[in-house]
């Protein structure tokens, strides 16, 4: 596993894409085949089944080190990563041994039916054989989430280089569901066998935000505009008589949305549609919060189906009559899509309508009405463009409306994770309500590294309590908080819940006396059409 540990080390330390790419293709060229499939799975978010949980790891580490639990917790808060905390705390190994990555993953899978005591023995013995770098990745295999700055795109590129397969083809080959424990890398990357999985989705094409004026894109006639919907991006696939619904996170979510079941009979085989899953009633989307009631539940109640019915707003057609049509220009795909949706006459399968305008100025005016459409703005898509893979500039742009903003004061702070370990980067903000401060949101991002360092230093000197994860700070620092939406909530003290809150800027010019009030938030809520609770 040393080779894998070394790979992880290079990938997480390097800031240069070329270096990472080089390390990955080097790895794919030299690692044992069985390890490669696992690395492919791990770095594309396919977690092995969990047989040991975080609490167990923590408990056994505390036993092995003899540290008090509170001290372990303090270490964890500073490191910001459980796997790494444990690797740093364990005593030096006494029985060095070396095994490849897939060996350890197999061993972990075998624990599925083991007793707690057997699991404990296995983990403690394993820790005792691994070096520091291996311990870290071993713990990561258990806790999951290798967030080390490797995008799926980068991995695909490395693999494409090693195996000399076009990146787009390769990306499709490794999508969908497959078991890294049984599939070989040859089978996975072999054209004729790789079509066997009927559920396989296409990689999504993602847009960048438009930063320049839209006129820079040339004549408006060359572009198709649509509302930008705020739901779950997804693909509906009908192949070999079966229906599959995938989310952008490459999660198979067919079972969560019974609304789509009728499509199993009506959609022709060999059809793949790209679109957005939204809660939808009376010909308009419902607020995102209603969709949240549907996420994370496998068994949907009748009440939910009535209160939060779901529809699929179709954007694009990727496969038609069994053929991959992504290379055709959008205008042709759109024509086929429009015909298909009209033929279907299914209440849960709709077309995301085109927004037409005579000029960019005219379109800009229409964009201002986005919130009335429960939309975040507009999407601009080049009519002549193919459907690309991943996030690419040029053919698709998101042109969002300006977010809401509120000036608020920081009242609590917590240390961050990963790159932000041992830094106070997670803040809770409050608005005024008379002479009280009412917390209304948390926000994690939006400051520069330099600002983070400054705020961190300030927090360390102005915190009122010292133990545990949360520091109460003197309410002095004012920030402008931006967010995309606001909804009533009875789970929050302030009565509101925000969508995508983040720090827009640090208002060092603004005294606490001049921050916004709870009434200002309620006014925004009414303005956005939400009801107070």
């Amino acid at each position, binding site marked *: 596993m040393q080779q894998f540990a070394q790979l992880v080390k290079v990938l*997480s*330390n*390097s*800031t240069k894409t070329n270096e990472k790419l080089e390390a990955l293709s080097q790895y794919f060229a030299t690692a044992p085949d069985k390890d490669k499939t696992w690395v492919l799975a791990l770095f594309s978010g396919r977690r092995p089944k969990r047989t040991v949980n975080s609490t167990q790891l923590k408990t056994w580490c505390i036993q092995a*080190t003899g*540290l*008090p639990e*509170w*001290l372990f917790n*303090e*270490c964890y808060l*500073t*490191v*910001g*990563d459980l796997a*790494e*905390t444990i690797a*740093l*705390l364990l005593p030096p190994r006494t029985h060095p041994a070396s095994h490849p990555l897939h060996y350890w993953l197999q061993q972990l899978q075998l624990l599925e039916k083991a007793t707690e005591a057997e699991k404990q023995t296995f983990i403690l013995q394993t820790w005792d054989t691994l070096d520091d770098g291996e311990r870290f990745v071993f713990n990561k295999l258990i806790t999951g989430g290798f967030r080390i700055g490797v995008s799926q795109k980068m991995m695909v590129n490395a693999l494409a280089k090693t195996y000399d397969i076009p990146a787009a083809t390769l990306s499709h080959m490794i999508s969908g569901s497959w078991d890294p424990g049984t599939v070989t890398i040859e089978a996975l990357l072999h054209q004729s066998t790789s079509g066997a999985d009927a559920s396989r989705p296409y990689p999504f094409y993602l847009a960048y935000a438009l930063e320049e004026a839209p006129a820079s894109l040339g004549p408006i006639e060359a572009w198709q505009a649509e509302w930008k919907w705020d739901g779950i991006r997804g693909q509906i696939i009908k192949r070999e008589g079966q229906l599959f619904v995938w989310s952008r996170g490459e999660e198979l979510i067919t079972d969560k949305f019974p609304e789509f079941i009728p499509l199993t009979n009506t959609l022709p085989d060999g059809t793949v549609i790209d679109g957005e899953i939204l809660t939808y009633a009376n010909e308009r989307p419902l607020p995102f919060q209603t969709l949240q009631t549907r996420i994370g539940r496998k068994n949907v109640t009748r009440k939910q189906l009535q209160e939060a019915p779901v529809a699929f707003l179709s954007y694009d057609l990727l496969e038609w009559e069994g053929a991959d049509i992504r290379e055709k220009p959008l205008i042709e795909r759109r024509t086929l899509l429009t015909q298909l949706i009209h033929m279907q006459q299914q209440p849960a399968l709709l077309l995301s309508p085109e927004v037409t305008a005579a000029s960019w100025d005219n379109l800009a005016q229409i964009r201002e009405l986005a919130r009335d459409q429960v939309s975040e703005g507009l999407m601009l898509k080049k009519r002549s463009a193919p459907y690309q893979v991943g996030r690419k500039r040029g053919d698709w742009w998101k042109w969002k409306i300006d977010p809401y903003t509120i000036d608020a004061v920081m009242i609590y702070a917590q240390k961050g*994770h*990963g*790159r*932000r*370990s*041992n*830094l106070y980067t997670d803040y809770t903000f409050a608005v005024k309500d008379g002479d009280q401060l009412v917390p209304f949101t948390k926000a994690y991002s939006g400051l520069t*590294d330099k600002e983070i*360092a400054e705020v961190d230093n300030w927090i360390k000197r102005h915190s009122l309590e*010292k*133990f545990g994860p949360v520091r109460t700070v003197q309410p002095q620092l004012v920030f402008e908080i931006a967010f995309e939406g606001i909804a009533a909530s009875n789970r929050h003290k302030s009565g509101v819940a925000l969508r995508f809150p983040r720090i827009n800027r640090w208002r060092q010019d603004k005294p606490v006396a001049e921050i916004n009030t709870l009434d200002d938030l309620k006014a925004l809520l009414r303005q956005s059409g939400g009801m107070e609770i």
Partner: protein
Amino acid sequence: MAAAMAFFCIFMYMELLQFTDKGIWCAAGDFYIDPWKPVQRAVITHAHSDHARWGNQYYLCEQTSIPLLKLRLGPDIHVQGIAYGESIYFNGVRLSLHPAGHMIGSAQVRVELNGEIWVASGDYKLETDGISAPFEPVRCHTFITESTFGLPIYRWEPQQQLFSRITNWIYENQQANKASVITAYSLGKAQRLLFHLKDKVTRMMGHGAITNVNDLLIEQGYPLPHIERITPDTPKAAFKNAVIIAPPSADDSAWMRRFNPYSLGVCSGWMQVRGHMRRRNADAGFALSDHADWNGLLEAVAATGATRVYATHGFSSVFARYLSEKGIDAREVSTAYGDEETITNPET
């Protein structure tokens, strides 16, 4: 008589060393240890800027620290030096300095009155670095200890191993035709690096902040290698495959970019944690510190035999709580001392 009684009563209730808004104060001897606001008499543990500050009327330090103090605070300061172990008296308070192993001239301050002994550690490490006088434990009743790395995740690798990792990294860079730029605090850490690398690599060069200190110490007779000072006129060809020592403040500056192609290595105890290394955008991080690690702090505390411990700068609340649970009367004290390993611009 009443006045004398009143004075006596106040004196009775005063601790030998107290924590005031100016620094650690000895009332009986009327001097401060590492004060952060100007005072008349300042006893300085070591020449780092968070411990040795401007504006004090008289300075007292270990004698080898004098040139460093003058380099930092100007040649005109009034400074007196004593040797390690030598005693000096202020109003009957006996004061002596003992090696702290943190850097050249770094000292623990031992203060004794009527048989009661306090030691203020300043910054210290237990491992002998080859240049500074090795740390010596001093028995006392009350120990004021730093706790910069007072968490058990901080355990240093023996320096022999660490330096061989650094030299391997340099060799790899040289094979890839890259310069190796190493950032290290200019006073202390940089000399430790130079001393340990001097027989393993040729062609070492330095930022002016590093060579200033280095030249001064060579003049004082320390066994350090001469390194070339990088100036605006140094030709680019000179940087090829070179080892360049730079202060942390030069990180990501135009000054550094001209060494391209280069690999950046950061030497600091904070590099122990991956997240910290990642946000420094370094190519390599080496957890090399002149502070004691967790085990070092515990060992030092135990060796003093102290029954009372005050933990200052760093993870002081955590360290104090841990000691309390081990039966030592320990508490956290807040001071204005920082940590030179994270001061981003120490040269100003």
